[in-house]
Protein backbone atom coordinates (compact mmCIF):
# COMPACT_ATOMS: atom_id res chain seq x y z
CA UNK A 1 0.00 0.00 0.00
CA UNK A 2 1.97 3.02 -1.19
CA UNK A 3 1.37 6.74 -0.80
CA UNK A 4 -0.31 7.13 -4.16
CA UNK A 5 -3.19 5.08 -2.84
CA UNK A 6 -3.97 7.78 -0.29
CA UNK A 7 -6.74 9.51 -2.22
CA UNK A 8 -8.46 11.56 0.40
CA UNK A 9 -7.14 12.98 3.61
CA UNK A 10 -9.16 15.07 6.01
CA UNK A 11 -7.71 16.55 9.18
CA UNK A 12 -9.24 18.48 12.03
CA UNK A 13 -12.58 19.14 10.34
CA UNK A 14 -14.98 21.27 12.29
CA UNK A 15 -18.41 22.72 11.56
CA UNK A 16 -20.70 24.65 13.84
CA UNK A 17 -24.34 25.50 13.40
CA UNK A 18 -25.15 28.31 15.75
CA UNK A 19 -23.93 27.10 19.11
CA UNK A 20 -23.82 23.46 18.14
CA UNK A 21 -20.64 21.76 16.95
CA UNK A 22 -21.96 19.22 14.48
CA UNK A 23 -18.46 18.08 13.64
CA UNK A 24 -15.41 18.72 15.80
CA UNK A 25 -11.80 17.77 15.13
CA UNK A 26 -12.60 14.93 12.75
CA UNK A 27 -9.98 13.42 10.51
CA UNK A 28 -9.86 10.39 8.28
CA UNK A 29 -8.05 8.84 5.36
CA UNK A 30 -9.43 7.08 2.33
CA UNK A 31 -7.20 4.76 0.35
CA UNK A 32 -7.72 3.01 -2.95
CA UNK A 33 -8.71 -0.59 -2.43
CA UNK A 34 -10.29 0.09 0.95
CA UNK A 35 -13.80 0.57 2.22
CA UNK A 36 -13.77 2.94 5.18
CA UNK A 37 -17.02 2.83 7.11
CA UNK A 38 -18.21 5.59 9.37
CA UNK A 39 -20.73 4.55 11.97
CA UNK A 40 -22.42 6.22 14.86
CA UNK A 41 -25.83 6.99 16.30
CA UNK A 42 -28.16 9.54 14.74
CA UNK A 43 -26.88 13.04 15.29
CA UNK A 44 -23.29 11.88 15.52
CA UNK A 45 -22.35 14.15 12.65
CA UNK A 46 -21.93 11.58 9.87
CA UNK A 47 -24.08 13.42 7.36
CA UNK A 48 -22.37 16.68 8.16
CA UNK A 49 -19.03 14.98 7.61
CA UNK A 50 -20.07 13.77 4.18
CA UNK A 51 -21.40 17.22 3.35
CA UNK A 52 -18.07 18.74 4.32
CA UNK A 53 -16.12 16.26 2.26
CA UNK A 54 -18.30 16.63 -0.82
CA UNK A 55 -18.35 20.41 -0.73
CA UNK A 56 -21.94 20.97 0.17
CA UNK A 57 -20.78 22.71 3.33
CA UNK A 58 -17.72 24.79 4.06
CA UNK A 59 -15.73 23.70 7.10
CA UNK A 60 -15.08 26.17 9.88
CA UNK A 61 -11.82 24.41 10.62
CA UNK A 62 -9.59 21.75 9.17
CA UNK A 63 -8.42 20.74 5.71
CA UNK A 64 -9.31 18.29 2.99
CA UNK A 65 -6.84 16.98 0.47
CA UNK A 66 -7.75 15.05 -2.64
CA UNK A 67 -4.77 13.12 -4.00
CA UNK A 68 -2.49 15.59 -2.32
CA UNK A 69 -4.36 18.65 -3.60
CA UNK A 70 -5.98 21.03 -1.13
CA UNK A 71 -9.69 21.18 -1.87
CA UNK A 72 -10.88 22.72 1.39
CA UNK A 73 -12.12 25.84 -0.38
CA UNK A 74 -13.00 24.21 -3.67
CA UNK A 75 -16.60 24.23 -4.88
CA UNK A 76 -18.67 21.05 -5.11
CA UNK A 77 -18.75 20.90 -8.93
CA UNK A 78 -14.99 21.30 -9.04
CA UNK A 79 -14.47 18.54 -6.49
CA UNK A 80 -16.67 16.28 -8.55
CA UNK A 81 -14.56 16.96 -11.61
CA UNK A 82 -11.43 16.22 -9.59
CA UNK A 83 -12.72 12.73 -8.91
CA UNK A 84 -14.80 12.98 -5.76
CA UNK A 85 -18.14 11.27 -6.29
CA UNK A 86 -21.04 11.17 -3.89
CA UNK A 87 -24.31 9.33 -3.59
CA UNK A 88 -27.15 10.68 -1.52
CA UNK A 89 -29.08 9.34 1.40
CA UNK A 90 -32.30 10.84 0.14
CA UNK A 91 -32.72 9.76 -3.43
CA UNK A 92 -31.43 12.56 -5.58
CA UNK A 93 -31.97 11.61 -9.20
CA UNK A 94 -33.86 13.16 -12.10
CA UNK A 95 -37.29 11.59 -11.63
CA UNK A 96 -38.81 12.65 -14.95
CA UNK A 97 -35.91 11.35 -17.02
CA UNK A 98 -35.30 7.72 -17.88
CA UNK A 99 -32.63 5.82 -15.98
CA UNK A 100 -30.56 5.95 -19.13
CA UNK A 101 -30.80 9.73 -19.37
CA UNK A 102 -29.88 10.06 -15.71
CA UNK A 103 -26.66 8.21 -16.29
CA UNK A 104 -26.02 9.83 -19.67
CA UNK A 105 -26.10 13.24 -18.00
CA UNK A 106 -23.66 11.99 -15.41
CA UNK A 107 -21.33 10.77 -18.13
CA UNK A 108 -21.69 14.01 -20.06
CA UNK A 109 -20.29 15.97 -17.15
CA UNK A 110 -16.90 14.37 -17.82
CA UNK A 111 -17.05 14.30 -21.54
CA UNK A 112 -15.01 16.64 -23.63
CA UNK A 113 -17.23 19.01 -25.57
CA UNK A 114 -19.87 19.11 -22.85
CA UNK A 115 -20.56 22.69 -23.88
CA UNK A 116 -21.42 21.90 -27.43
CA UNK A 117 -24.54 23.76 -28.49
CA UNK A 118 -25.27 22.11 -31.77
CA UNK A 119 -24.41 18.47 -31.33
CA UNK A 120 -27.08 15.83 -30.92
CA UNK A 121 -26.52 14.98 -27.29
CA UNK A 122 -28.91 12.08 -27.11
CA UNK A 123 -27.22 10.36 -30.01
CA UNK A 124 -23.59 10.81 -29.02
CA UNK A 125 -22.03 7.39 -29.16
CA UNK A 126 -19.37 8.10 -26.55
CA UNK A 127 -21.96 9.08 -23.94
CA UNK A 128 -24.31 6.25 -24.81
CA UNK A 129 -21.53 3.74 -24.43
CA UNK A 130 -20.48 5.17 -21.11
CA UNK A 131 -24.06 5.19 -19.82
CA UNK A 132 -24.67 1.60 -20.91
CA UNK A 133 -21.48 0.49 -19.21
CA UNK A 134 -22.38 2.18 -15.94
CA UNK A 135 -25.96 0.91 -15.97
CA UNK A 136 -24.76 -2.62 -16.58
CA UNK A 137 -22.20 -2.40 -13.78
CA UNK A 138 -24.92 -1.29 -11.39
CA UNK A 139 -27.26 -4.01 -12.58
CA UNK A 140 -29.83 -1.77 -14.19
CA UNK A 141 -29.34 -2.56 -17.86
CA UNK A 142 -32.83 -4.02 -18.18
CA UNK A 143 -34.49 -0.93 -16.70
CA UNK A 144 -32.74 1.73 -18.74
CA UNK A 145 -35.84 3.13 -20.38
CA UNK A 146 -37.93 3.46 -17.25
CA UNK A 147 -38.53 6.91 -15.79
CA UNK A 148 -36.33 7.18 -12.72
CA UNK A 149 -39.18 8.36 -10.55
CA UNK A 150 -41.04 5.10 -11.12
CA UNK A 151 -38.16 2.79 -10.27
CA UNK A 152 -38.37 0.85 -7.04
CA UNK A 153 -36.50 2.23 -4.08
CA UNK A 154 -33.72 -0.32 -4.38
CA UNK A 155 -33.40 0.36 -8.09
CA UNK A 156 -33.09 4.05 -7.40
CA UNK A 157 -30.20 3.31 -5.07
CA UNK A 158 -28.64 1.31 -7.89
CA UNK A 159 -29.22 4.25 -10.19
CA UNK A 160 -27.39 6.51 -7.76
CA UNK A 161 -24.42 4.18 -7.96
CA UNK A 162 -24.64 3.98 -11.75
CA UNK A 163 -24.60 7.77 -12.00
CA UNK A 164 -21.62 7.83 -9.70
CA UNK A 165 -19.77 5.30 -11.81
CA UNK A 166 -20.43 7.23 -15.00
CA UNK A 167 -18.45 10.13 -13.61
CA UNK A 168 -15.41 7.88 -13.22
CA UNK A 169 -14.53 9.07 -9.72
CA UNK A 170 -11.52 7.95 -7.77
CA UNK A 171 -13.18 8.47 -4.38
CA UNK A 172 -16.73 7.37 -3.61
CA UNK A 173 -18.70 8.88 -0.74
CA UNK A 174 -21.68 6.61 -0.18
CA UNK A 175 -24.24 8.04 2.20
CA UNK A 176 -26.45 5.20 3.46
CA UNK A 177 -26.87 3.44 0.12
CA UNK A 178 -28.81 0.64 1.80
CA UNK A 179 -31.38 2.92 3.42
CA UNK A 180 -34.81 1.39 2.96
CA UNK A 181 -33.48 -1.45 0.86
CA UNK A 182 -34.09 -5.03 1.97
CA UNK A 183 -32.88 -8.56 1.46
CA UNK A 184 -31.66 -9.52 -1.97
CA UNK A 185 -31.31 -6.00 -3.28
CA UNK A 186 -29.22 -5.00 -0.28
CA UNK A 187 -26.96 -8.00 -0.77
CA UNK A 188 -26.54 -7.11 -4.43
CA UNK A 189 -25.62 -3.54 -3.53
CA UNK A 190 -23.07 -4.70 -0.99
CA UNK A 191 -21.56 -7.07 -3.55
CA UNK A 192 -21.30 -4.16 -5.96
CA UNK A 193 -19.56 -2.04 -3.36
CA UNK A 194 -17.16 -4.87 -2.66
CA UNK A 195 -16.27 -4.97 -6.34
CA UNK A 196 -15.92 -1.23 -6.64
CA UNK A 197 -13.35 -0.96 -3.91
CA UNK A 198 -10.71 -2.54 -6.12
CA UNK A 199 -10.40 0.62 -8.22
CA UNK A 200 -11.70 3.23 -5.81
CA UNK A 201 -11.40 4.55 -2.29
CA UNK A 202 -14.76 4.26 -0.62
CA UNK A 203 -16.32 6.02 2.34
CA UNK A 204 -19.43 4.23 3.49
CA UNK A 205 -21.97 5.53 5.97
CA UNK A 206 -24.29 2.78 7.09
CA UNK A 207 -26.41 1.63 10.00
CA UNK A 208 -26.67 -2.03 9.10
CA UNK A 209 -23.89 -3.45 11.31
CA UNK A 210 -23.74 -6.84 9.65
CA UNK A 211 -23.18 -5.24 6.29
CA UNK A 212 -20.65 -2.82 7.74
CA UNK A 213 -18.53 -5.43 9.44
CA UNK A 214 -18.74 -7.69 6.41
CA UNK A 215 -17.28 -5.15 4.03
CA UNK A 216 -15.23 -2.65 6.03
CA UNK A 217 -11.46 -2.51 5.88
CA UNK A 218 -11.37 0.37 8.31
CA UNK A 219 -13.92 1.79 10.68
CA UNK A 220 -14.42 5.15 12.29
CA UNK A 221 -16.93 5.50 15.08
CA UNK A 222 -18.39 8.95 15.60
CA UNK A 223 -20.30 10.33 18.49
CA UNK A 224 -21.49 13.88 19.17
CA UNK A 225 -19.47 15.22 16.30
CA UNK A 226 -16.20 13.68 17.42
CA UNK A 227 -14.28 10.54 16.54
CA UNK A 228 -14.70 8.02 19.31
CA UNK A 229 -12.40 5.41 17.82
CA UNK A 230 -10.83 4.55 14.50
CA UNK A 231 -9.09 1.45 13.26
CA UNK A 232 -9.55 -2.00 11.80
CA UNK A 233 -12.82 -3.81 12.48
CA UNK A 234 -11.05 -6.07 14.99
CA UNK A 235 -9.67 -3.10 16.89
CA UNK A 236 -13.07 -1.42 16.94
CA UNK A 237 -14.78 -4.56 18.16
CA UNK A 238 -12.31 -4.81 20.99
CA UNK A 239 -12.46 -1.14 21.95
CA UNK A 240 -14.02 -0.72 25.37
CA UNK A 241 -15.50 2.72 24.76
CA UNK A 242 -17.16 1.57 21.56
CA UNK A 243 -18.54 -1.48 23.29
CA UNK A 244 -19.98 0.71 25.99
CA UNK A 245 -21.66 2.94 23.44
CA UNK A 246 -22.92 0.13 21.23
CA UNK A 247 -23.62 -2.53 23.82
CA UNK A 248 -24.65 -5.69 22.03
CA UNK A 249 -24.98 -4.10 18.63
CA UNK A 250 -21.69 -5.34 17.20
CA UNK A 251 -21.53 -8.74 15.47
CA UNK A 252 -20.14 -11.30 17.90
CA UNK A 253 -19.05 -14.14 15.74
CA UNK A 254 -15.35 -14.57 14.96
CA UNK A 255 -16.31 -16.78 12.12
CA UNK A 256 -18.18 -13.95 10.50
CA UNK A 257 -15.08 -11.77 10.80
CA UNK A 258 -12.86 -14.43 9.26
CA UNK A 259 -15.27 -15.10 6.47
CA UNK A 260 -15.22 -11.43 5.56
CA UNK A 261 -11.49 -10.88 5.71
CA UNK A 262 -10.06 -14.29 4.96
Amino acid at each position, binding site marked *: MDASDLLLQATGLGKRFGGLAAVDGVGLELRRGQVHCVIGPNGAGKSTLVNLL*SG*ELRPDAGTIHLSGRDVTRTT*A*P*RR*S*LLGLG*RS*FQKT*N*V*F*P*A*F*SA*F*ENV*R*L*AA*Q*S*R*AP*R*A*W*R*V*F*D*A*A*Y*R*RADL*RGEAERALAAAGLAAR*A*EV*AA*GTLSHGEQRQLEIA*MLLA*TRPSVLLLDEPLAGVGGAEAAALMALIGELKREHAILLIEHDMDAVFAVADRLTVMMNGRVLASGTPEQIRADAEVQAAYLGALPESEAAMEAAHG
Partner: protein
Amino acid sequence: MSASIPASRRPASGWPLRLVLLVGLVALLAMPFAGSDFYLNLLTRTMLLAVFAMSLDLLVGHTGLISLGHAAYFGLGAYVAALTVPEYEPGNLWLTLLLASAAAAAAALVVGFFVLRTSGIYFIMVTLAFAQMMFFLFHDTPLGRGTDGIYINVRPDSGLGFLDLERASHFYWLALAVLLAVFLLLRRLARSSFGSALAGIRENEHRMRFLGYPTFAYKLVAFTLAGALAGLAGCLLAFHGGFVNPELLNWQQSGNALFMVILGGMGQFYGAALGAFLFAAMQEGFGLLTKHWHLLMGVVIVLLVLAAPRGIAGLLEGRRDGRQ
Protein backbone atom coordinates in the same frame (compact mmCIF):
# COMPACT_ATOMS: atom_id res chain seq x y z
CA MET B 1 -33.55 3.68 -29.16
CA SER B 2 -36.41 5.82 -27.91
CA ALA B 3 -35.01 6.15 -24.42
CA SER B 4 -32.08 8.05 -25.85
CA ILE B 5 -34.42 11.02 -25.88
CA PRO B 6 -35.88 11.39 -22.40
CA ALA B 7 -39.63 11.25 -22.12
CA SER B 8 -39.99 14.96 -21.49
CA ARG B 9 -38.05 15.87 -24.60
CA ARG B 10 -39.92 13.96 -27.26
CA PRO B 11 -41.48 16.01 -30.00
CA ALA B 12 -45.21 16.38 -30.24
CA SER B 13 -46.61 13.00 -30.81
CA GLY B 14 -50.25 13.78 -30.24
CA TRP B 15 -51.83 14.14 -33.65
CA PRO B 16 -54.19 16.99 -32.72
CA LEU B 17 -51.21 19.12 -31.79
CA ARG B 18 -49.28 18.23 -34.93
CA LEU B 19 -52.31 19.03 -37.01
CA VAL B 20 -52.76 22.42 -35.41
CA LEU B 21 -49.11 23.32 -35.91
CA LEU B 22 -49.15 22.15 -39.52
CA VAL B 23 -52.31 24.02 -40.36
CA GLY B 24 -50.89 27.08 -38.65
CA LEU B 25 -47.69 26.93 -40.66
CA VAL B 26 -49.52 26.51 -43.94
CA ALA B 27 -51.81 29.40 -43.10
CA LEU B 28 -48.82 31.61 -42.30
CA LEU B 29 -47.19 30.72 -45.59
CA ALA B 30 -50.34 31.39 -47.54
CA MET B 31 -51.23 34.69 -45.92
CA PRO B 32 -49.24 37.07 -48.11
CA PHE B 33 -51.09 35.77 -51.14
CA ALA B 34 -54.52 36.14 -49.66
CA GLY B 35 -54.55 38.64 -46.84
CA SER B 36 -54.82 42.37 -46.67
CA ASP B 37 -52.06 44.59 -45.34
CA PHE B 38 -53.94 45.01 -42.09
CA TYR B 39 -53.78 41.30 -41.35
CA LEU B 40 -50.23 41.01 -42.61
CA ASN B 41 -49.15 43.70 -40.18
CA LEU B 42 -51.08 42.12 -37.35
CA LEU B 43 -49.50 38.74 -38.02
CA THR B 44 -46.05 40.27 -38.36
CA ARG B 45 -46.35 41.83 -34.93
CA THR B 46 -47.63 38.52 -33.57
CA MET B 47 -44.79 36.53 -35.09
CA LEU B 48 -42.26 38.87 -33.51
CA LEU B 49 -44.08 38.51 -30.21
CA ALA B 50 -43.77 34.77 -30.72
CA VAL B 51 -39.99 35.10 -31.04
CA PHE B 52 -40.01 37.04 -27.78
CA ALA B 53 -42.12 34.35 -26.13
CA MET B 54 -39.89 31.53 -27.40
CA SER B 55 -36.83 33.24 -25.99
CA LEU B 56 -38.54 33.33 -22.61
CA ASP B 57 -39.48 29.67 -22.96
CA LEU B 58 -35.79 28.82 -23.16
CA LEU B 59 -35.52 30.20 -19.64
CA VAL B 60 -38.84 29.23 -18.12
CA GLY B 61 -39.84 26.03 -19.86
CA HIS B 62 -36.50 24.55 -20.69
CA THR B 63 -34.20 25.68 -17.88
CA GLY B 64 -36.74 26.30 -15.15
CA LEU B 65 -35.77 29.93 -14.60
CA ILE B 66 -38.92 31.97 -14.04
CA SER B 67 -37.94 35.39 -15.25
CA LEU B 68 -40.51 38.09 -14.63
CA GLY B 69 -38.37 40.77 -16.23
CA HIS B 70 -37.76 39.54 -19.74
CA ALA B 71 -39.41 42.54 -21.37
CA ALA B 72 -36.37 44.60 -20.37
CA TYR B 73 -34.27 42.98 -23.11
CA PHE B 74 -37.12 43.16 -25.60
CA GLY B 75 -37.52 46.88 -24.95
CA LEU B 76 -33.79 47.46 -24.96
CA GLY B 77 -33.55 45.96 -28.44
CA ALA B 78 -36.32 48.26 -29.58
CA TYR B 79 -34.59 51.30 -28.11
CA VAL B 80 -31.31 50.43 -29.76
CA ALA B 81 -33.14 50.52 -33.06
CA ALA B 82 -34.74 53.86 -32.31
CA LEU B 83 -31.58 55.47 -30.97
CA THR B 84 -29.12 54.32 -33.61
CA VAL B 85 -30.89 54.85 -36.92
CA PRO B 86 -30.74 58.23 -38.69
CA GLU B 87 -33.78 60.38 -38.24
CA TYR B 88 -35.04 60.64 -41.78
CA GLU B 89 -33.03 58.05 -43.63
CA PRO B 90 -33.22 54.28 -43.63
CA GLY B 91 -30.87 52.57 -41.23
CA ASN B 92 -28.96 49.40 -41.91
CA LEU B 93 -31.14 46.42 -41.02
CA TRP B 94 -28.47 43.82 -40.32
CA LEU B 95 -26.12 46.11 -38.48
CA THR B 96 -28.91 47.35 -36.24
CA LEU B 97 -30.13 43.82 -35.57
CA LEU B 98 -26.63 42.84 -34.58
CA LEU B 99 -26.27 45.87 -32.35
CA ALA B 100 -29.64 45.36 -30.70
CA SER B 101 -28.99 41.69 -29.98
CA ALA B 102 -25.53 42.46 -28.67
CA ALA B 103 -26.78 45.23 -26.41
CA ALA B 104 -29.56 43.05 -25.07
CA ALA B 105 -27.12 40.21 -24.56
CA ALA B 106 -24.74 42.48 -22.68
CA ALA B 107 -27.51 43.73 -20.42
CA ALA B 108 -28.68 40.17 -19.79
CA LEU B 109 -25.13 39.12 -18.98
CA VAL B 110 -24.77 41.86 -16.37
CA VAL B 111 -28.20 41.35 -14.82
CA GLY B 112 -27.80 37.60 -14.97
CA PHE B 113 -24.60 37.84 -13.02
CA PHE B 114 -26.61 39.35 -10.16
CA VAL B 115 -29.90 37.52 -10.34
CA LEU B 116 -28.60 34.02 -10.94
CA ARG B 117 -27.07 34.05 -7.49
CA THR B 118 -30.61 33.68 -6.24
CA SER B 119 -33.19 31.02 -6.84
CA GLY B 120 -36.83 30.29 -6.37
CA ILE B 121 -39.00 33.15 -5.36
CA TYR B 122 -36.06 35.52 -4.89
CA PHE B 123 -35.16 35.00 -8.53
CA ILE B 124 -38.65 35.89 -9.67
CA MET B 125 -38.64 39.07 -7.62
CA VAL B 126 -35.19 40.29 -8.57
CA THR B 127 -35.71 39.73 -12.29
CA LEU B 128 -38.79 41.91 -12.00
CA ALA B 129 -36.90 44.50 -10.00
CA PHE B 130 -34.02 44.75 -12.46
CA ALA B 131 -36.45 45.11 -15.36
CA GLN B 132 -38.14 47.89 -13.44
CA MET B 133 -34.78 49.56 -13.01
CA MET B 134 -34.26 49.51 -16.76
CA PHE B 135 -37.77 50.83 -17.22
CA PHE B 136 -36.91 53.80 -15.03
CA LEU B 137 -33.71 54.28 -16.97
CA PHE B 138 -35.71 54.92 -20.10
CA HIS B 139 -38.65 56.59 -18.41
CA ASP B 140 -36.93 59.11 -16.18
CA THR B 141 -33.60 59.92 -17.80
CA PRO B 142 -32.98 61.73 -21.08
CA LEU B 143 -31.55 58.50 -22.49
CA GLY B 144 -34.93 57.31 -23.66
CA ARG B 145 -36.21 60.78 -24.53
CA GLY B 146 -38.83 60.25 -21.83
CA THR B 147 -42.36 58.98 -21.84
CA ASP B 148 -43.26 60.48 -25.19
CA GLY B 149 -41.14 57.90 -26.92
CA ILE B 150 -39.19 57.99 -30.15
CA TYR B 151 -40.38 57.61 -33.71
CA ILE B 152 -38.59 55.67 -36.37
CA ASN B 153 -39.65 57.47 -39.48
CA VAL B 154 -38.22 55.25 -42.17
CA ARG B 155 -37.99 51.48 -42.34
CA PRO B 156 -34.44 50.18 -42.59
CA ASP B 157 -32.64 49.21 -45.74
CA SER B 158 -32.03 45.49 -46.06
CA GLY B 159 -29.28 45.84 -48.62
CA LEU B 160 -30.94 43.05 -50.56
CA GLY B 161 -32.65 44.03 -53.79
CA PHE B 162 -35.59 41.71 -53.29
CA LEU B 163 -36.32 42.69 -49.71
CA ASP B 164 -38.07 46.04 -49.52
CA LEU B 165 -39.10 46.47 -45.93
CA GLU B 166 -41.43 49.33 -46.70
CA ARG B 167 -43.79 46.74 -48.13
CA ALA B 168 -45.96 44.92 -45.62
CA SER B 169 -45.61 41.56 -47.33
CA HIS B 170 -41.82 41.76 -47.40
CA PHE B 171 -41.56 42.59 -43.73
CA TYR B 172 -43.95 39.71 -43.14
CA TRP B 173 -41.63 37.28 -44.91
CA LEU B 174 -38.71 38.56 -42.91
CA ALA B 175 -40.59 38.06 -39.67
CA LEU B 176 -41.71 34.57 -40.69
CA ALA B 177 -38.15 33.65 -41.64
CA VAL B 178 -36.89 34.91 -38.28
CA LEU B 179 -39.62 33.00 -36.45
CA LEU B 180 -38.75 29.73 -38.15
CA ALA B 181 -35.01 30.29 -37.81
CA VAL B 182 -35.24 31.03 -34.09
CA PHE B 183 -37.52 28.05 -33.56
CA LEU B 184 -35.11 25.69 -35.31
CA LEU B 185 -32.16 27.19 -33.48
CA LEU B 186 -33.76 26.75 -30.08
CA ARG B 187 -34.87 23.23 -30.85
CA ARG B 188 -31.38 22.27 -31.95
CA LEU B 189 -29.98 23.88 -28.84
CA ALA B 190 -32.36 21.99 -26.60
CA ARG B 191 -31.14 18.69 -27.98
CA SER B 192 -27.48 19.52 -27.70
CA SER B 193 -25.16 18.62 -24.84
CA PHE B 194 -25.54 22.15 -23.54
CA GLY B 195 -29.31 22.00 -23.85
CA SER B 196 -29.57 18.64 -22.14
CA ALA B 197 -27.55 20.03 -19.27
CA LEU B 198 -30.00 22.94 -18.99
CA ALA B 199 -32.82 20.42 -18.79
CA GLY B 200 -30.93 18.64 -16.05
CA ILE B 201 -30.63 21.91 -14.19
CA ARG B 202 -34.37 22.37 -14.47
CA GLU B 203 -35.04 18.91 -13.08
CA ASN B 204 -32.53 18.88 -10.26
CA GLU B 205 -29.91 21.60 -10.13
CA HIS B 206 -28.47 20.33 -6.89
CA ARG B 207 -27.68 16.98 -8.44
CA MET B 208 -26.16 18.60 -11.49
CA ARG B 209 -23.68 20.45 -9.30
CA PHE B 210 -22.66 17.21 -7.66
CA LEU B 211 -22.18 15.66 -11.04
CA GLY B 212 -19.63 18.34 -11.73
CA TYR B 213 -21.59 20.81 -13.83
CA PRO B 214 -20.84 24.50 -13.18
CA THR B 215 -24.52 25.35 -13.12
CA PHE B 216 -24.12 29.10 -12.64
CA ALA B 217 -22.19 29.35 -15.88
CA TYR B 218 -24.75 27.29 -17.78
CA LYS B 219 -27.61 29.41 -16.51
CA LEU B 220 -25.78 32.61 -17.32
CA VAL B 221 -25.24 31.56 -20.91
CA ALA B 222 -28.89 30.63 -21.27
CA PHE B 223 -29.98 33.92 -19.71
CA THR B 224 -27.73 35.90 -22.03
CA LEU B 225 -28.86 34.03 -25.12
CA ALA B 226 -32.51 34.48 -24.21
CA GLY B 227 -31.87 38.20 -23.73
CA ALA B 228 -30.20 38.45 -27.14
CA LEU B 229 -33.14 36.79 -28.88
CA ALA B 230 -35.60 39.03 -27.06
CA GLY B 231 -33.59 42.05 -28.16
CA LEU B 232 -33.69 40.81 -31.72
CA ALA B 233 -37.46 40.58 -31.59
CA GLY B 234 -37.77 44.00 -30.00
CA CYS B 235 -35.58 45.60 -32.65
CA LEU B 236 -37.66 44.17 -35.48
CA LEU B 237 -40.86 45.18 -33.76
CA ALA B 238 -39.58 48.73 -33.40
CA PHE B 239 -38.76 48.87 -37.10
CA HIS B 240 -42.15 47.47 -37.97
CA GLY B 241 -44.24 49.72 -35.74
CA GLY B 242 -42.06 52.78 -36.10
CA PHE B 243 -42.43 53.82 -32.47
CA VAL B 244 -40.86 52.94 -29.16
CA ASN B 245 -41.67 54.07 -25.66
CA PRO B 246 -40.76 52.91 -22.14
CA GLU B 247 -43.93 50.84 -21.86
CA LEU B 248 -42.19 48.18 -23.94
CA LEU B 249 -40.14 47.37 -20.85
CA ASN B 250 -42.89 47.45 -18.29
CA TRP B 251 -43.86 44.49 -16.27
CA GLN B 252 -47.16 43.92 -18.05
CA GLN B 253 -45.05 43.02 -21.08
CA SER B 254 -43.10 40.59 -18.94
CA GLY B 255 -46.25 39.20 -17.41
CA ASN B 256 -47.93 38.81 -20.79
CA ALA B 257 -44.89 36.98 -22.12
CA LEU B 258 -45.07 34.57 -19.22
CA PHE B 259 -48.74 34.10 -19.96
CA MET B 260 -47.98 33.28 -23.58
CA VAL B 261 -45.42 30.70 -22.57
CA ILE B 262 -47.70 28.92 -20.17
CA LEU B 263 -50.75 29.35 -22.38
CA GLY B 264 -49.19 27.48 -25.20
CA GLY B 265 -47.35 24.91 -23.13
CA MET B 266 -43.82 25.07 -21.93
CA GLY B 267 -40.52 23.66 -23.01
CA GLN B 268 -40.99 22.79 -26.64
CA PHE B 269 -40.93 26.31 -28.08
CA TYR B 270 -43.79 25.78 -30.47
CA GLY B 271 -45.97 26.07 -27.39
CA ALA B 272 -44.68 29.57 -26.71
CA ALA B 273 -45.29 30.54 -30.33
CA LEU B 274 -48.79 29.10 -30.16
CA GLY B 275 -49.35 31.02 -26.95
CA ALA B 276 -48.30 34.26 -28.60
CA PHE B 277 -50.82 33.76 -31.39
CA LEU B 278 -53.58 32.88 -28.96
CA PHE B 279 -52.74 35.88 -26.82
CA ALA B 280 -52.82 38.21 -29.81
CA ALA B 281 -56.13 36.72 -30.90
CA MET B 282 -57.58 37.25 -27.43
CA GLN B 283 -56.27 40.77 -27.28
CA GLU B 284 -57.89 41.63 -30.61
CA GLY B 285 -61.06 39.73 -29.86
CA PHE B 286 -61.61 40.99 -26.36
CA GLY B 287 -60.62 44.46 -27.48
CA LEU B 288 -63.50 44.47 -29.90
CA LEU B 289 -65.91 43.56 -27.13
CA THR B 290 -64.96 46.09 -24.51
CA LYS B 291 -62.33 48.63 -23.63
CA HIS B 292 -61.98 46.78 -20.35
CA TRP B 293 -60.62 43.73 -22.12
CA HIS B 294 -57.91 43.37 -19.48
CA LEU B 295 -60.64 42.07 -17.21
CA LEU B 296 -61.49 39.27 -19.61
CA MET B 297 -57.81 38.51 -20.08
CA GLY B 298 -57.33 38.32 -16.33
CA VAL B 299 -60.23 35.93 -15.95
CA VAL B 300 -58.91 33.74 -18.74
CA ILE B 301 -55.50 33.67 -17.07
CA VAL B 302 -56.90 32.61 -13.72
CA LEU B 303 -59.11 29.96 -15.32
CA LEU B 304 -56.24 28.69 -17.42
CA VAL B 305 -53.99 28.22 -14.43
CA LEU B 306 -56.74 26.50 -12.49
CA ALA B 307 -57.87 24.19 -15.24
CA ALA B 308 -55.06 23.72 -17.73
CA PRO B 309 -51.70 24.30 -16.10
CA ARG B 310 -49.90 22.54 -18.92
CA GLY B 311 -51.34 24.91 -21.43
CA ILE B 312 -53.11 24.36 -24.69
CA ALA B 313 -50.33 22.20 -26.09
CA GLY B 314 -50.67 20.06 -23.01
CA LEU B 315 -54.37 19.63 -23.64
CA LEU B 316 -53.77 18.73 -27.27
CA GLU B 317 -50.98 16.34 -26.47
CA GLY B 318 -53.49 14.38 -24.51
CA ARG B 319 -51.10 12.21 -22.55
CA ARG B 320 -48.83 12.98 -19.69
CA ASP B 321 -45.26 13.23 -20.86
CA GLY B 322 -43.65 13.10 -17.46
CA ARG B 323 -43.19 16.82 -17.14
CA GLN B 324 -44.76 18.83 -14.36
